[in-house]
């Protein structure tokens, strides 16, 4: 007996399942690479084909049950006719949900916003509000507790400005581009209303993402494996949106070898550092945690190549590295970053304007750096 192997499949009728995602998943799993065409579906309440229309008609103020009392024999629905004093040209039904749902479902598969403007525009569509106006899903969460300065660098680098000089003795927090970047961040929650107000807790942002409280989250590559294991739904990874330029801060930690070490300690420390930074170890680390591997040749190891082939999202951060800048690092670093962190948080909570916050932060940072010279 011959089995028939299709070349292509076109679906012409709707697939009646609860959500768009279910439809695509089911159809994708069953028909996989053969599927070439699928119509816009009717999902959720509309999956019962035309049967869903009756309650809508019944509820309309323009129609009333026919006085003859006749019912449709098949489903015993009462026949309807125009209400008293209503002309047929008066009847309209408002939004039935086809367009809205189609748009929303389309968004499930769109590309990530690539510029600040796209972020704001997409954000308006991604922010879901319930009937009372409460937000059930935010478009984006950029966490701001703990070390807000770090993700802030994602915004400032995209605005083509540096926060410090190479020597780490000067900071530039009050440059207009920095203030603009902060203003953009503040506007996301206050003007565009696509991000929660106030400071957003770093540690709970991934969980927010899993719980679909936010459509987009900005986070460390260190969360990649966490998200991959725990999200429970397909997700994508994209570079941070660009503006005047593109960029992100690097992260991670450093190994330090102190001058005052015994020879034994020095040898042991060096051995440790070398062992930790071999390409194989770097690849290992990157795969296990999601952190972007620290050396280019780590990406050429067989383990890493296989990992990236299975999971292309892992390569995005690597590709972004060519736009990356050094993490904020100055003399008396803790104090200076605290000044900046406080300023960012003040702006986000609305206690200070971005301009005032950054001016104060710059003043404080300058004072600290002056004292440490």
């Amino acid at each position, binding site marked *: 007996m011959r089995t028939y192997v299709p070349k292509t499949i076109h679906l012409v009728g709707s697939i009646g399942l609860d959500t768009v995602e279910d439809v695509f998943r089911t159809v994708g799993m069953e028909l996989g690479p053969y599927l070439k065409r699928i119509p816009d579906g009717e999902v959720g309440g509309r999956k019962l084909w035309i049967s869903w229309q009756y309650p809508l008609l019944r509820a309309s103020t323009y129609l009333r049950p026919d006085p003859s009392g006749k019912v449709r024999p098949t489903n015993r629905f009462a026949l309807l006719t125009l209400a008293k004093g209503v002309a047929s040209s008066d009847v309209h039904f408002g939004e039935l949900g086809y367009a809205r749902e189609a748009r929303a479902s389309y968004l499930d598969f769109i590309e990530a916003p690539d510029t600040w403007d796209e972020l704001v525009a997409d954000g308006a569509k991604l922010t879901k509000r319930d009937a009372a106006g409460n937000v059930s899903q935010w478009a984006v969460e950029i966490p701001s*507790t703990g070390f807000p300065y770090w993700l802030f660098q994602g915004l400032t680098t995209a605005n083509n400005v540096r926060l410090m000089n190479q020597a780490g003795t000067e900071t530039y927090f009050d440059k207009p581009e920095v203030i603009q970047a902060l203003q953009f961040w503040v506007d996301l929650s206050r003007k565009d209303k696509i991000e929660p107000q106030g400071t957003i807790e770093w540690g709970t942002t991934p969980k927010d993402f899993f719980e679909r409280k936010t459509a987009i989250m900005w986070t460390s590559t260190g969360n990649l494996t966490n998200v991959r294991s725990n999200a429970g739904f397909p997700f994508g990874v994209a570079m941070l949106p660009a503006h005047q330029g593109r960029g992100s801060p690097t992260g991670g930690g450093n190994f330090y070898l102190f001058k005052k070490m015994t020879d034994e300690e020095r040898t042991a420390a060096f051995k440790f550092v070398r062992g930790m930074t071999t390409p194989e170890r770097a690849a290992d680390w990157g795969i296990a945690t999601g952190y972007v591997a620290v050396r280019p040749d780590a990406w050429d190891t067989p383990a890493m190549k296989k990992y990236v082939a299975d999971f292309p999202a892992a390569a995005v951060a690597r590709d972004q590295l060519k736009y990356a800048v050094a993490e904020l690092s100055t003399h*008396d670093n*803790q104090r200076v970053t605290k000044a900046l962190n*406080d300023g960012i948080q003040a702006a986000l909570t609305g206690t200070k304007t971005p301009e005032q916050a950054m001016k104060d932060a710059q003043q404080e940072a300058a004072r600290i750096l002056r004292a440490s010279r």
Partner: protein
Amino acid sequence: MNAAAEPIARGLAEEAGRMPPPAVGPVAPRTSPTRGAPIGLSAHIHGWLLLLPAAVLLVTFTYYPAVATIIDSFFSTPKGRRNAAFIGLDNYQAMLDDPVFWRALGNNIVYAASVIPLTIALALMMAILINGKIAGRPFLRLSFFTPTVLPMIAVANIWLFFYSPGYGLLDQFLGVFGFATHNWLGDEHTALACLIVVAIWKDAGFFMIFYLAALQQMSPQLAEAAAIEGASRWYFFRRVTFPLLMPTTLFVLINAIINSFRLIDHIVVMTRGGPDNTTALLLFYIYEVGFKFWDTAYAATLTVVLLALLAFLALGQFLFLDRRIHYQ
């Protein structure tokens, strides 16, 4: 260790001869302090020898550091190649100019002023409830006292989960009543209040136990007498119970004051002082300055302020409240 002020107050009063010592175990007849005990030179030597180990540790880890802190506050922080240099009151000037210091101080005062009365009031109320004839008292007592045996770190992690916007229990609970989700710990108006709630939750049960003990020691004849006189419960509470509980209240008050300055574990877990220092407390700021910025001289300066504050409060208690205590 936590303080025991009521016994201290009693002890001191006893020393001053104002009242007889409390009956403890079999009653001891009043005797001269040295009758039957070594007197003379051997008393002095033995006394000091017995005290020596404790004294050495106390001096090394309490008195010397306290004095050293004060001294260090007049010097600059040694950094790398630079040694500490005498700079007089410069650190204090910097402190007065530091907005974060004022924030931390203000926060601590608000925090203490909120936590202390609320915790004590709740503890008292719980003790009275449990002391009554309610069914299931062991469960009530268990429920109120359990937070006390948990480390504050554990408590803070649980409450961090609790306060999470959206799916945290608090928002879910409020959501049932139609309230919108709220960023409790990220909003500068609610963050400190949230920490205050955590502190109250942790300590109320602890203080409740002391009130329970005191209530159970109260003579039932008092209640009988009041019933005969036709006194209302509130009147009885206000005029009899509460004054008699004063020694316990003093003890609990000292504990509460100390905890409101000492316990900052929940800040480390939940807000790290943010947003923008709205939940920074003095000891937390000292920890940041001393161990994150390594500015030890400035940390010493801040510590001096904290010590002064604690000393002031201790003095205030003894002088002011001691007069109003009834002893049975």
